């Protein structure tokens, strides 16, 4: 058995081993993501999906997404995928410009990016593409062209991220050596503003800081993360949440496979305290259009938490970085780009 086969069978086995965790739940979404799941053949994907159906109760029309890079999505592959239960593609386009793709060290080129979308839109209706902004040397004009290009394909969902330089990457070392200009937050902020305007005009909602969707096309899977829903993550380094505990699998492929083969879940578990849950709710809530529900805070965490939340939020309400709509605390356009710092300030901390 090759490595890939071993991995697929471990994934299927893990699904089986963990079915008890979802006994009274219905699976609403299936998501192939993290790393490069498009290395899987359609057959393998089908097998995994079958394992889900064999072991879990699945809703009528689940959202089934595959994350893929343009270089993995040949014409033929797209057709094959369309025949499978996959009904949503999330394509890592990043940019339609050669210079950006080079800088980010991507495997595909601009031409492949376009070709792949053209092909995908012929078959799939529910497509999301990733775009990166705040890239050094990326002018506002180029960013606008990028957005317009994406919109021209009439995709219903775009995920757009500010470039972050992870330590120890090629990009980080180029910046350190002065070969590439460092990432500038001011540029990122301007690009974000442009993005918000453009997407709004095109009929998209920014339902989360980095996610834009047309009505009916918000990612159900990702939304679940921000609404404290339960999820099971299968595979090395995947995270799961059962409403009270978060767990994550070991991040080493051979060890993962070996452990699963021995019927052991290679998992670490963290029990979330009430404060942890409150902090996570505030942190994720401020990123979304659903905000932080005051009623929910009071009901789930108690009066003390609500009082504290409002007291901490006061300053930001005044500065118009937050606003209250109905019973929800929401970040304003200006506040959204500062959401982490604001969330930290609303956090409950036991010192």
């Amino acid at each position: 058995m090759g490595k890939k086969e071993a991995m697929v069978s471990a994934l299927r086995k893990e699904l089986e081993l963990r079915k008890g965790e979802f006994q009274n739940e219905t699976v609403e979404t299936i998501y192939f993501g993290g790393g490069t799941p498009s290395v899987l053949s359609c057959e393998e994907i089908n097998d995994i999906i079958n394992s889900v159906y064999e072991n879990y109760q699945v809703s009528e029309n689940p959202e089934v997404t595959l994350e893929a890079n343009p270089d993995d999505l040949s014409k033929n592959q797209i057709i094959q995928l369309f025949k499978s239960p996959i009904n949503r593609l999330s394509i890592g386009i990043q940019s339609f410009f050669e210079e950006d793709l080079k800088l980010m060290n991507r495997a595909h080129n601009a031409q492949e990016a376009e070709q792949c979308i053209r092909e995908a839109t012929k078959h799939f209706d529910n497509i999301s593409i990733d775009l990166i902004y705040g890239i050094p040397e990326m002018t506002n004009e180029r960013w606008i062209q990028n957005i317009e290009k994406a919109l021209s394909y009439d995709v219903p969902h775009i995920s757009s991220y500010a470039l972050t330089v992870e330590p120890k990457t090629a990009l980080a070392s180029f910046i350190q050596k002065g070969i590439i200009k460092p990432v500038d937050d001011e540029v990122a902020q301007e690009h974000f503003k442009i993005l918000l305007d453009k997407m709004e005009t095109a009929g998209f909602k920014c339902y989360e800081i980095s996610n834009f969707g047309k009505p009916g096309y918000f990612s159900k899977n990702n939304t679940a993360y921000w609404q404290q829903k339960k999820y099971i993550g299968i595979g090395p380094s995947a995270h799961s949440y059962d409403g009270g505990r978060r767990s994550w699998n070991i991040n080493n492929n051979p060890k993962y496979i070996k452990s699963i083969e021995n019927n052991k879940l290679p998992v670490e578990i963290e029990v979330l305290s009430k404060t942890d849950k409150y902090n996570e709710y505030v942190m994720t809530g401020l990123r979304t259009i659903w905000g932080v529900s005051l009623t929910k805070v009071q009901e789930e965490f108690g009066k003390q938490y609500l009082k504290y939340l409002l007291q901490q939020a006061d300053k930001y309400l005044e500065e118009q970085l937050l606003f209250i709509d109905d019973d929800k605390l929401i970040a304003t356009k200006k506040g959204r780009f500062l959401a982490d710092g604001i969330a930290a300030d609303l956090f409950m901390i036991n010192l």
Partner: protein
Amino acid sequence: MKHIRNFCIIAHIDHGKSTLADRLLDFTGAVTDREKKEQLLDSMDLERERGITIKSHAIQMEYTYQSQEYVLNLIDTPGHVDFSYEVSRSIAACEGALLVVDAAQSIQAQTISNLYLALENDLEIIPVLNKVDLPSANPEEVTDDIVDLLGCDTEEVIPASAKTGIGIEEILSAIIERIPPPEGNPDESLQALVFDSVYNPFRGVETYFRVINGEIKKGQKIKFVATDKDYFADEVGTLKLTQEIKQSVKAGDVGYLITGIKDAREVKVGDTITDAAKPTKNAIEGFEDVKPMVFAGIYPVDTDEFEELRSSMEKLQLNDASLVFAPESSAALGFGFRCGFLGMLHMEIIQERLEREFNMTVITTVPNVSYHAFTRKNPDTALIVNNPTDLPDPSSIDRVEEPYIKATIITKSDFVGNVMSLCIEKRGQITNQTYLTTERVELNFDMPLAEIVFDFYDRLKTVSKGYASFDYAPIGMRKSKLVRVDILLNAQPVDALSALIHADNAVTIGKKMCEKLKELIPRQQFDIPIQAAIGAKIISRETTKALRKDVTAKCYGGDISRKRKLLEKQKKGKKRMRQVGNVEVPQEAFMAVLKLND
């Protein structure tokens, strides 16, 4: 008395003083195996963690030598210049000293300064060549160095290893054979030297003393000469690993005293204890009130905690009499205290103890030394300036004087050039240069104390690749051309960041201060100009740009708990920041000027 020996161990830091003390205690059976732990005498947590001796201690051993029982009192002395007065009093309580020299590192600055102290007090010196077990040891050369320094015979130097136990027995024999027994008259009126005190929360202040003449008895009414206060000796005894209660402690011996004193300031190191009814005519020479050398403001991070800080400081002072403080207020920081410390280490210790033992979060402002300002109106009366903001208006000043020290630096000849440049940059004037050997040089400088406060040690270590040791002693006040450099954050002067700096360096240092603050002050929602100014003139400017983006792009399943933990940490850090005007300034920024060259 013939069978008592009082001795101390003097050494440069890390040459093995505490370890040697441990070995002596083991060998004489003063410590049972169960009580054994490394560097036994370093009992404060801070001392153990840092591996340095802050407070001095004393311990008594019994040792049979040639069928005769002897009592050996070992007085351990602190190893840091901040506490040199305590060292001098401990030395004064002894007749002999073990001079410990690391066989790999040879003679260093504190070896010499401590040796001089011991010689001034006529102590018999027993040179110990320690760490001979080290592969890098140079026993022959270092022995020669010692012989040169002391003018003794090669045979007098005892090779030893405090680690493996080599030479311990020889050291004990030498203590008995070479150190003279104490002289003194048990029948005279009581005369005892206070060489240390410690605070015990249950028993009050424990005073450590050496009886010179007479005896101190349980129940006796005694007097402290310098403070002129009378007490009853509730309990006296000798100092084994635990205290041993006695009816009396006689001339020549070392012991402890409990009087019910609850405030450490009533017991002054160097003071003389005598009989209240029949006081001695001769107080022991050399008493000084310890003078603080470094001053800084201590403020609560949370303004509501001022009263709590006051009560914590008062409690601290009960067991550390060298801490002085007075309330002050700062436009930037509100109410706090101007505190005087023996030196930078002492300041760090106080700050750390406030945080650890009293759970206070405090800001320490830029430290400074004590200046004398003379106005034109009153050119003969010194105004004492312990806070830069107290400096009178420059136009009214006749002159300013600042404290100077004599610095002793020993280094390898390769680094003489580097060390000189550093000392000259620090406004030092060389007064002497002596080759101890062909490789090792002793340099003396007259230098402003303030320059040592501002990152001198670290840079000395750097420029000499670690091969320089340093010690200093105050030599009085000298006239100096000083200006006050103020720092403005968001156009508001922050008094807690002001510093007095020599006019020639003011611009450079002002610039560096701005750069350092820019590094340390986190971005906020608006641009923050950081300026340095002398009077109305801005000499430097930096800007901390507004925070534009403070949100991670991706926050999916696996990112959530990682992100939460990161933000929680960030929030905890914020707790340690202080709002100055509308700018949040982290605690460490106030000390940043000390580390301008990092």
